[in-house]
């Protein structure tokens, strides 16, 4: 081993990397670190549920219990006549929670994983990604909370169901990209995390969690209200998840899909560039 080391050349630790290559470098770093990613996800899951008596059942129970509460409020107190409303709410909760957690976990990753950076030189995106993957896995597990409604309402079983996973991926990807963008900034200006926390709480009501795309279209039509609503990156994916589950086909304008995918891709490109350029320096502030 010493002979091998003897023959190696010294390599600068902080070499310059061109801007346009950074999104590809992040993807390649993550692929190379997949073993570490797997262990970090396992660690996060263990840390979250190991001491709980019900363990992973909480991943299913949480959206189910929330759905019962919201169903009570909206069907009994408000008087919604749609029998599928509880299912739509559960999907909304799962989708929104996935996006919000992906965003906040990756946004806080630099400050929350500082002790792990000190062991060795590991790509810092790994820590932002492991938390996001943990949340994505829990969101997939929480989909089982829909099963009772499947049998009760005899919902269609088709290949369309795969689209639920696709839209969940879009939500995760967008939240993760935005989190990468915010993480280095939040190290320098901690108030940013308070703003994120507020936006996540406000976003719950501004996103189609308790309302649906059709409800919005029927009320506001397709004018500027619709364009503003489509700026919310969760509107199309959550609607897509509902359509895939219920076998419905909501009429969504093409520009809305372009905005949704553009937002996801833009978040990734901008997030990876800012993270790779600023995260190392930002850690000094933590």
């Amino acid at each position: 081993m010493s002979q091998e080391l003897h023959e190696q050349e010294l390599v600068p630790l902080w070499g310059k990397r061109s801007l346009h290559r950074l999104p590809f470098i992040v993807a390649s770093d993550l692929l190379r670190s997949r073993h570490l990613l797997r262990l970090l996800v396992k660690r996060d899951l263990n840390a979250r549920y190991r001491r709980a008596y019900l363990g992973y059942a909480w991943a299913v129970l949480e959206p189910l219990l929330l759905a019962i509460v919201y169903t009570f409020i909206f069907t009994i107190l408000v008087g919604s006549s749609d029998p599928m409303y509880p299912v739509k709410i559960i999907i909304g909760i799962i989708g929104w929670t996935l996006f919000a957690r992906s965003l906040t976990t990756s946004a806080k990753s630099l400050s929350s994983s500082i002790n792990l950076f000190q062991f060795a030189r590991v790509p810092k995106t790994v820590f932002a990604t492991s938390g996001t993957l943990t949340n994505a896995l829990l969101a997939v597990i929480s989909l089982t909370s829909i099963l009772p409604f499947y049998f009760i309402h005899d919902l269609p079983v088709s290949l369309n169901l795969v689209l639920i996973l696709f839209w969940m991926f879009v939500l995760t990807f967008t939240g993760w990209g935005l989190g990468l963008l915010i993480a280095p900034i939040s190290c320098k200006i901690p108030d940013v995390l308070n703003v994120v926390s507020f936006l996540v709480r406000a976003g719950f009501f501004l996103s189609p969690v308790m309302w649906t795309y059709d409800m919005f279209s029927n009320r506001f039509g397709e004018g500027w209200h619709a364009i503003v609503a489509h700026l919310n990156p969760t509107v199309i994916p959550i609607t897509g998840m509902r359509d895939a589950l219920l076998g419905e086909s909501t009429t969504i304008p093409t520009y809305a899909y372009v905005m949704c995918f553009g937002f996801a891709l833009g978040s990734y490109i901008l997030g990876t560039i800012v993270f790779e350029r600023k995260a190392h320096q930002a850690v000094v502030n933590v």
Partner: protein
Amino acid sequence: MSTVMRLEDISLEYPVPRQYRKEDVLPSGVRNISLDIQQGEVLGIVGRNGSGKSTLLKIMAGVFPPDNGIISSKGSVSLLAGVGVGFHKELTGRENAYLYGALMGRTQQQIDELIGEIQDFAELKHHFDRPIRTYSSGMKSRLGISVATAFRPDLLLIDEVLGVGDASFRKKSEDRVKQLIQDSGTVVIVSHSMGLLSSICTRIALVENGNVVSIGPPQDTLKAYSELLKIE
């Protein structure tokens, strides 16, 4: 002998929090440090509290990027800083060892091969499969030193952790580091224990106000350090 790490005119200043900016306080960090670390050497670093020793190790580990200067290295580098740093309290000793190994870039198979050695060295017996939160600080430090040295990085950076545990474990840790050096490992160690440094180091650097003010044979540097402490 080849150089495993080269620091050229390295500087790093910690940002001063806004509320202290008006005070006449020098920003902490390191300034204009140039240093070559040779393969197989044990470089000790001494200095008063806040002089920049730990910051220097973090720059060497690639944790912090320098504001100025170039740092280059070859081979794997690992930093052992603080007892149980990075261990997750809900994970068992075994799970933490696997995670540490993965952070060091080791594969599952490589960790499998070393896990028995880690368990034996840490002397944790059945506690190895219990969550870290049930460990005493001595047990955590034994596990920390055991995993950090077992993965045999090409350059091991140690920050004030060899003095932990009881007398017999301290002796064992020192022996392990000496063994690591014999296996052509290279060690940079920060410690306040002059006895330990003079027994294992080939060179010692004295850091004061973020600068390396003296570097050379252990006895010479430790003498300069003692004089600095007397002046204080």
